C-alpha cells in the first residue's frame, strides 16, 4: 500500500525549508536553550569534579577530633577555626607509623590582609596535589630558603600586586583589618604559585618555624626582637600544630591508619580521607548547583514551546496543504506524523546545533575556566549523556507537537475534500 512509501520525512523537511526564516529562529531558540542547559551541566560537573579534587595525592588529613567536614573546612579551605590544636608529639607518632611516606604539617591562625597564613614545610609544595594529580608549580621564584620567607598563592599575588622580593607583614587572627600585626618580623616573598582554582590561591605560606618565632613572646605580640641569626640557631620546632597531611606508600593502608589515629590513646585525634569528606561537603553545598540545573531545564522547555508556537501559527495556513495531501492518497495519520516529524526535526536540529555550540564554547573557554576558576572540564567531546539530551529534547518536541498534529488530524477528517481557506 501507499502508506509505506509516503514520503513524510522529506515533505516535512521541505516544508521546514520553505519557512526557513521562522524555522531558523525556532531552531536557534532551541539551540541556545540546549547550549545553556548543557553548558550549565558541563560546568556543574566540572565544578563538582574539581571541588572533589581540591586536594588529591593526600591520603589522610589529621587534626583534633571534631567532625570530618569541619576538619576539611579549616585545614584545606581555611574556613573557620580548629576546635583544638594537636601536639607535635602526636604528629611525630603518626609520621613514624608504618606505611607513612611523608607528612606535611600546617599551622593556621594568622592572616595577611584577609588571606590566611599557613605555616608549613617546603614539603607542602611537593606533595599537595589537586585535580587529577596536578602538582603545585611556581609562576615565579621558589620555595622557602630562609626562616622569614613566604610563598603567596596566585590570587593573593594578583589582588595585592605582589612579586618576589617584596616584604609583607602577617597579622594575628583573621580579618583584613587585623588587631595585632607581627610587624617586628616582616617576611620576604620568595615565590608566587601558579593558579590552581583551589584555596591554595588564596593563601600565604610561611615556614612552620617562622610561625613559632613570631609567637615566641606571646601570641598577640608584635613579634620577636631576637635577631634572625639567633633565631635560626634555635630549635623552633612547634609544640602544637593545627593539622597535617599524610601521604602513604600504599592507599590501602589509609583505612587502617585512619582507625589507629581515631583511637590514638594520648590525644583525641581524627583522620579523614579527603575525597570522602569532600563528597560529603559537596552534598551540602551542591543544592545551589542543582537549582541552577533545574532553571536550565526550564529554559529548554521554553525552547520547546517556541516550536509549538511556530507550528500552531502555521497550522491554519497549512490546513489546505493537508487537504491536498489527503487528495493525493495520504492517510489521516500521515497528516499527524507530518506535523510531529516537523516538530521533532526542528528540535533535533536545535539540539544538535546546541550541543555543537556547547562543545565549541567549552573548547574555547576551558583554559580560562581552568585558570580563573579552577574548573576542569573533564570531557571535551560529546558523549552518551549529550546524545541522551538530544534524544530527550527531540522526543519532548514530538510529544508537544502531537497537540497541533492532533488538531490537524481532526481537521483533515472533518474537511473531507473541501479546502478550507
Amino acid at each position, binding site marked *: *500500500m*501507499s*502508506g509505506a*512509501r*509516503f*514520503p513524510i520525512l522529506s*515533505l516535512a523537511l*521541505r*516544508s521546514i*525549508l*520553505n*519557512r526557513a526564516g521562522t524555522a531558523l529562529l525556532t531552531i536557534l531558540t532551541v539551540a541556545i536553550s540546549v547550549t545553556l542547559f548543557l553548558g550549565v551541566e558541563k560546568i556543574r560537573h566540572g565544578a563538582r569534579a574539581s571541588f572533589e579534587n581540591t586536594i588529591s595525592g593526600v591520603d589522610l588529613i589529621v587534626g583534633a577530633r571534631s567532625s570530618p567536614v569541619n576538619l576539611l573546612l579549616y585545614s584545606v579551605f581555611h574556613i573557620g577555626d580548629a576546635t583544638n590544636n594537636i601536639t607535635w608529639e602526636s604528629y611525630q607518632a603518626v609520621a613514624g607509623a608504618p606505611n607513612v611516606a611523608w607528612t606535611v604539617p600546617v599551622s593556621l591562625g594568622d592572616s595577611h590582609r584577609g588571606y590566611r597564613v599557613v605555616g608549613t614545610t617546603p614539603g607542602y609544595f611537593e606533595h599537595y596535589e589537586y585535580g587529577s594529580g596536578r602538582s603545585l608549580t611556581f609562576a615565579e621564584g621558589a620555595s622557602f630558603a630562609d626562616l622569614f620567607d613566604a610563598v603567596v598563592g596566585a590570587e593573593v599575588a594578583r589582588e595585592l600586586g605582589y612579586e618576589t622580593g617584596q616584604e609583607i607583614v602577617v597579622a594575628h587572627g583573621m580579618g583584613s583589618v587585623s588587631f595585632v600585626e607581627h610587624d617586628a618580623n616582616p617576611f620576604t616573598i620568595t615565590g608566587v604559585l601558579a593558579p590552581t582554582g583551589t584555596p591554595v590561591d588564596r593563601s600565604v605560606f610561611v615556614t612552620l618555624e617562622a610561625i613559632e618565632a613570631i609567637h615566641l613572646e606571646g601570641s598577640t605580640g608584635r613579634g620577636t626582637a631576637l635577631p634572625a641569626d639567633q633565631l635560626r640557631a634555635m630549635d623552633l620546632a612547634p609544640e602544637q600544630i593545627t593539622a597535617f597531611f599524610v601521604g602513604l606508600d600504599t592507599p590501602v593502608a589509609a583505612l587502617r591508619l585512619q582507625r589507629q589515629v581515631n583511637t590514638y590513646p594520648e590525644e583525641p585525634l581524627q583522620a579523614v580521607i579527603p575525597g570522602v569528606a569532600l563528597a560529603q561537603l559537596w552534598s551540602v553545598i551542591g543544592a545551589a548547583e542543582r537549582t541552577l540545573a533545574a532553571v536550565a531545564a526550564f529554559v529548554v522547555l521554553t525552547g520547546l514551546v517556541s516550536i509549538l508556537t511556530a507550528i500552531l501559527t502555521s497550522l491554519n495556513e497549512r490546513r*489546505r*496543504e493537508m*487537504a*491536498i*495531501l*489527503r*487528495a*493525493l*492518497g*495520504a*492517510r*489521516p495519520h500521515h497528516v499527524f506524523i507530518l506535523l510531529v516529524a516537523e516538530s521533532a526535526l526542528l528540535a533535533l536540529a536545535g539540539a544538535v546545533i546546541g550541543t555543537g555550540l556547547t562543545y565549541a564554547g567549552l573548547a574555547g573557554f576551558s583554559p580560562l575556566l581552568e585558570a580563573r576558576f579552577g574548573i576542569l572540564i573533564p570531557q571535551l567531546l560529546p558523549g552518551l549523556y549529550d546524545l541522551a539530551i538530544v534524544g530527550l529534547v527531540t522526543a519532548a518536541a514530538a510529544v508537544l507537537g502531537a497537540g497541533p498534529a492532533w488538531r490537524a488530524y481532526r481537521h483533515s477528517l472533518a474537511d*473531507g*475534500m*473541501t*479546502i478550507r*481557506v
Partner: protein
Amino acid sequence: MIESAPALQIADLRFNYRHGDDVLAIARFDVRAGERLFLRGASGSGKSTLLGLIAGILSPQAGRIEVLGEDLTTMGAAKRDAFRAARLGVIFQMFNLLPYLPVGRNITLPCRFSPERARNAADAGGADAEARRLLDRLGLDPAEFWLKRSSALSVGQQQRVAAARALIGRPGLILADEPTSALDADSRDAFIDLLKEECAASGAALIFVSHDSSLADHFDRALDLSDLNTASVTA
C-alpha cells in the same frame, strides 16, 4: 482491461455529515469509462461532498459506490486511500499545489505516493519526462516552469500544473471541483479544452463540477445534481 469498467456506478447512496440531515440521496448515477461529464449544482448543493465520496475520503451511510470497477464501500479506509492515490486525480478550485515544492516536484508527487502511478509514468518514459510532456501540452514551457516556485505562478498557471499532477501516471478518473472558478472566461475555456484533450489522450474519465451551467457545452454529457439528489438540501 480495467479501463473498460465503468468509471463510476453509484446505487442507493445516502450520506450525511455527523448524523445531520441527509446531504445526498442518489438512487443511481453512472459514468462510463472515458466519459467527460459536467455536473452542475448550486453552492451548498453537495457537489464537493459527492466528489469526496467518489474519492473515498468520505464514506456513505448507505449505498454502493463503484469506482473504476472497484467497490469503495467494501474497502477499509486504508485501502480507499491507497486506491485514491493509484487511480484518481483530483483538482481543487484553488490552492492545489504544495507551496514548498517546485512545479516539477508537485506534478510528480502522485508517482511518489503510488507505485502504480509511478509504473504507469515509467511506461510512458519516466515520471519527469511525462510531467514535462504534460506541462508542455497544458501550455507551460517546462524549461521555464519546471523549477519555478509554485507560489510564483498565476492562478491559471497553478490550475494547469494541478491538472498535470492529476493526469500523471494515467489515473482512470479525474475529479475536478470547480477548477476554473478563479479564472477569467478566456483562460477558463482554454483550461477546460486542455483538460478534456488530456483526459481523452490518457483515456481517463472526467467528472467536472461547477455551479456555472454555461460550461456544460464543453462536455460529453451534462447533469444537474438536483436532478440526481433527492435529499432536501438547502441549495
